[in-house]
């Protein structure tokens, strides 16, 4: 073989080896979730078995246990309710705020927008002590409604920032034309700006929902009774009896909760990145 061909083949091989490395690095823990959740306990806890595939036939036992013997279905429902409420609060506050900031003349809108966005960087581990006090005063301790109250503190800043970008990309002339036609300013916002920024609104809905699913620190701090837990907290902390981890059930629960978030992210990732980098590259 001529030397050039050999060099080319070596280059191709190392490239695909790199692809394989990244693929396995990212995917293996999820493969491990899947295989663990379908394995029988006898197969799982036997160091003589090859762990990478099924030595006994796959079983649905862990999933059945999860839905019949634990509060898993309740946690799913809790997360759904929390997510929907937080999405509603976020839309009602962030949509008008973002529109107003995007249309504000001068530097004020931009400065105020950056100010709101920076609060997204204030971490839960700095605020959880006073917030748990606030929640106790409001009588919401140990209730999932505390999360509905607190989660908008990070979804509103993030989504206002994201939506500002969307509104800025709509030319103001469209609303001005509507106003000339007799629409009020408010009407122009409802009838013109909102329908035109529907892709942005959809992105915000999906991201708000996934942010509420991913949150862990506030849920851990505010909620201790099993029936009030959202799914992430329930799966991670409630399937352990004493010192025994129910690995099959834990992995089955993690798998179910991960799938929707993983799909949503892949569809909306580009918008997310554009949002947090704030168009640093132009």
């Amino acid at each position, binding site marked *: 073989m001529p030397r050039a061909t050999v060099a080319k083949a070596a280059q191709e091989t190392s490239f695909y080896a790199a692809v394989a490395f990244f693929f396995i690095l990212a995917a293996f823990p999820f493969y491990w979730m899947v295989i663990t959740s379908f394995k029988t306990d006898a197969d799982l806890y036997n160091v003589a078995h090859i762990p990478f595939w099924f030595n006994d036939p796959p079983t649905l036992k862990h999933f059945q246990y999860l839905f019949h013997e634990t509060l898993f279905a309740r946690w799913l429902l809790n997360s759904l309710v929390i997510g929907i409420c937080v999405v509603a609060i976020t839309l009602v506050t962030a949509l008008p705020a973002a529109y107003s900031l995007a249309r504000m003349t001068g530097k004020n809108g931009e400065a105020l927008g950056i100010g709101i966005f920076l609060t997204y960087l204030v971490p839960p581990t700095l605020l959880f002590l006073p917030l748990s006090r606030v929640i106790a005063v409001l009588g919401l301790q140990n209730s999932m409604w505390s999360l509905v109250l607190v989660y908008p503190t990070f979804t509103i800043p993030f989504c206002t920032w994201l939506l500002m970008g969307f509104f800025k990309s709509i030319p103001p002339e469209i609303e001005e034309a509507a106003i000339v036609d007799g629409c009020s300013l*408010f009407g122009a916002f409802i009838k013109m700006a909102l329908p035109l920024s529907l892709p942005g609104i959809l992105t915000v809905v999906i991201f708000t929902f996934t942010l509420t699913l991913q949150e862990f620190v506030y849920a851990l701090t505010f909620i201790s009774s099993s029936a009030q837990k959202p799914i992430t907290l329930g799966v991670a902390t409630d399937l352990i009896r004493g010192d025994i981890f129910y690995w099959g059930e834990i992995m089955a629960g993690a798998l179910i909760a991960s799938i929707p978030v993983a799909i949503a992210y892949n569809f909306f990732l580009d918008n997310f990145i554009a949002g947090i980098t704030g168009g640093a590259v132009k």
Partner: protein
Amino acid sequence: MVAIAESVPRPASRFRFIFDRRDVLGAIFVSPAILYVLLLVGVPFLMAVYYSVSAYTIYDPSWRFVGMANFEQILENPDFRHTLSNTFIFTFGSQILGLILGKFGALVLLRPFPGRKLVRAIIILPFAVPVALATVAWQWMFDSLYSVINWTMIALGLIDRANAPNWLGNPDLAMLSVIVVNAWRFFPFAIVIFLAGITAVPQDVLDAATVDGAGFWRRNYQIIVPMILPIVAIGLIFGIVFTFTDLSIVFLMTMGGPIGATTVLGYSGFQTGIVSGDVSHGAAISLFMLPVLLVVVVLMLRFIKRREI
């Protein structure tokens, strides 16, 4: 089309004076968001600052002012200094590892190949999936008895079962494990940030450099890296903030142990302020995050302002 003449003389609504005044409506539109953030971020933040100089505990909720006493007590505690250095090791270790993986991952994904879309979708997973759930999967992979990592190394003859590492039970290995898990969580984010930066570099600039005789490394380090620096800096700032203040990975994997080897600021604040109920000391511990956060915010402002130019 409806004739324009019809729509102009509409009966004025009672709220028309609100709906038509740009400044009034603008203020009404912004205020709910600002109020929410002020009441539930601004006020609690000030409360946290006051807790840290008070004697507040959940058993004795007094607002008695004690000055810097809490901070002095914390700084005298050698465990706390250990916590502080752990936090820096955890943050910078995982960010450096994440950035290296991100840079190489971006180079790999930049080249078209069959199945690239699918590979990209899979590589995003560690960042997309709730961190707590991915962490328990890793905890299971690091299990003291059934670790798949150890099983593989034993099968390959690298170690024998009697000397298999106890990943989360040995202080150094435990720190390494939480760093690896955090880097694993952030490297897809780094890849995406690098990709967004690299694809934004105009091709004609690169072509011009090639014509002028710049090779691969020169193009890489003298053109691409400086041009993508702002976007990478913003990505890194996010990584630092969310790692420096994190508590979930350490809480789930090691509980700060063994013997405090992986205790970080967020976990220590949680343990003291929430679990033990010593709110004032917990708040003081958490406030040690503030200097780092302030530096980060200043940097962030600088990079966001650049887009105005």
